[in-house]
């Protein structure tokens, strides 16, 4: 059986800077996958490549048997791969409802679990129904993040790519969004969740992929990954004990 999503030796050069070096992994359908790594590890670049926002220098991205490399992001959307942005990008001249309407009217055609929903229902689901007619330009950061999620859901994702959807949010807001992700996953959408906030990602993911310097460092269950010496070294600094510096607080607590 072919995997749901498979990355085969994906590399990306930015004018001489190698952001990704032969990254390969596979996802099965269902579940919340975590993608973690220190700043500059190449997480967002990888997400952009899967979503069609960026083209890899080499390698293949196979989604449900289809190579997505070379497909523009709107084509990836039609295949069912939809992303959110770390820095929310609302259509500022449009109301919150109209923003979601863009996803609903241009997203993937056809039905799957959790859809058949119209824009208003999605807003209700995400918890910003009361803001439907508010101009999206005046939303708070938390609500902008929810709108990002609502818009992406409107486009009926099979694979939802979330880029640091909790960054800049309070603990309560983060908990809220994480619950939302669990709800989305239960309705049948697979999620690949890029996050800097380790505590957040460890609590929702069933499988974590760790990246460092553009390469895949490790992958496995959250417990496995947390105890992997290579991962600890990447996050805390390998020679912390030998050169006398104090390691930063336990990396799971870092957020």
């Amino acid at each position: 059986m072919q995997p749901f999503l498979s990355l085969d030796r994906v590399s990306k050069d930015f004018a001489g800077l190698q952001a990704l070096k032969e990254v390969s992994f596979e996802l099965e359908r269902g579940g919340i996958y975590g993608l973690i790594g220190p700043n500059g590890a190449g997480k967002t670049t990888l997400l952009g490549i899967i979503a069609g926002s960026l083209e890899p220098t080499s390698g293949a991205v196979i989604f449900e048997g289809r190579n997505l490399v070379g497909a523009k992001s709107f084509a990836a959307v039609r295949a069912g791969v939809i992303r959110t942005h770390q820095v929310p990008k609302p259509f500022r001249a449009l109301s919150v409802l109209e923003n979601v309407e863009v996803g609903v009217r241009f997203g993937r055609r056809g039905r799957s679990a959790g859809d058949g929903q119209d824009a208003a229902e999605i807003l209700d689901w995400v918890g910003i129904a009361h803001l439907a007619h508010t101009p999206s330009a005046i939303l708070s950061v938390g609500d902008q993040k929810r709108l990002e999620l609502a818009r992406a859901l409107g486009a009926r994702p099979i694979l939802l790519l979330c880029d640091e959807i909790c960054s800049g949010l309070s603990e309560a807001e983060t908990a809220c969004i994480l619950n939302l992700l669990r709800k989305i996953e239960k309705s049948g959408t697979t999620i690949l969740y890029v996050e800097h906030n380790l505590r957040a990602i460890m609590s929702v993911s069933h499988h974590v992929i760790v990246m460092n310097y553009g390469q895949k460092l490790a992958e496995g269950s959250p417990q496995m990954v947390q105890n992997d010496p290579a991962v600890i070294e990447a996050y805390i600094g390998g020679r912390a004990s030998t050169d006398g510096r104090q390691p930063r607080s336990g990396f799971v607590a870092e957020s």
Partner: protein
Amino acid sequence: MEQKAPSGMRRVRNRGVLGFALLLAILVVLPLFGLSPNAVRLLFVTFVWVTVSIAWNILGGFGGQVSFGFAVFYGLGAYAAALAVNRGLPTIVALLLSAGVAVLASLLIGLPTFRLRGPYFAIATIGVSESVRVLMTNVSMTGGASGYRILETGPFRQLDHFYISLALAVVALAASVEVRRSRFGLALIAIREDEDAASDLGVNPFRTKLLAHALAAALTGAAGGVYAQYAAFIHPQGVFAFSIGVAILLMPIIGGVGTIWGPVVGGVVYGLIHDELVASFPQLHLLIYGSLLILIVLFEPAGLYGLLDRWFRALAGARRIRAAVP
């Protein structure tokens, strides 16, 4: 977008439709009451500018793609109509040809230039526009720089031209309203606000921009055709002039870019005062437009229409308050 409007909004919209029908009726019967030929000419020119202003706004206002190159469509439309009329084709066929030639040009221009974004696209349209002007001054079939004349076969009937230009302006307005409430219009606005985000939700930006460009070009080309048949003489320095391209962009911005009525207001203002300004201040009229543009961009980005809208709201608000106080 089809949305159930609350009853208050529906009332306002009905009133708007009623007001528009009334205005249209007045414009239709106005020339029958002994309007001077000069006044009819002024209205004719105004309708042509309103059409072009609305057309530019579809791409530039809704879609956010600032083009300085609309003189290309206006000029090609004018030449296409002139050539067609001189071959004995009826007016309506001539205008369809004008629109068709302009659409073709819009695709040829759009295919390479829509790969550019923002200011780069705007600059590219300047280059294209100037190249076409230079090219047309060297095409011998249309008389090159010395221009091209329509040979009149029948008597000149000014009112025919008047009604054709009015009809075209109404078509343009209807197209603009339809675009604004359609799925296509939603895509255009999304692209204007954030092209990458729009693409990430399934909008094909390239195709959407190309379509908007073609629609705007069709209307602009037809307007050029209407003008050429009235003027009966056209030349590249006139219809392809860079200043025409700038004027076409100036009107909707002065009127209120990205709205339905802003470009109409801009076109009316420009149409009615342009001749007068050129006659009174032959050296200064561009300076006046320039200053107006700066003032509007700085103080009223929603344009004259935004200004009027605010005044009316303030007025209505004051009246409501007065009515509420016994």
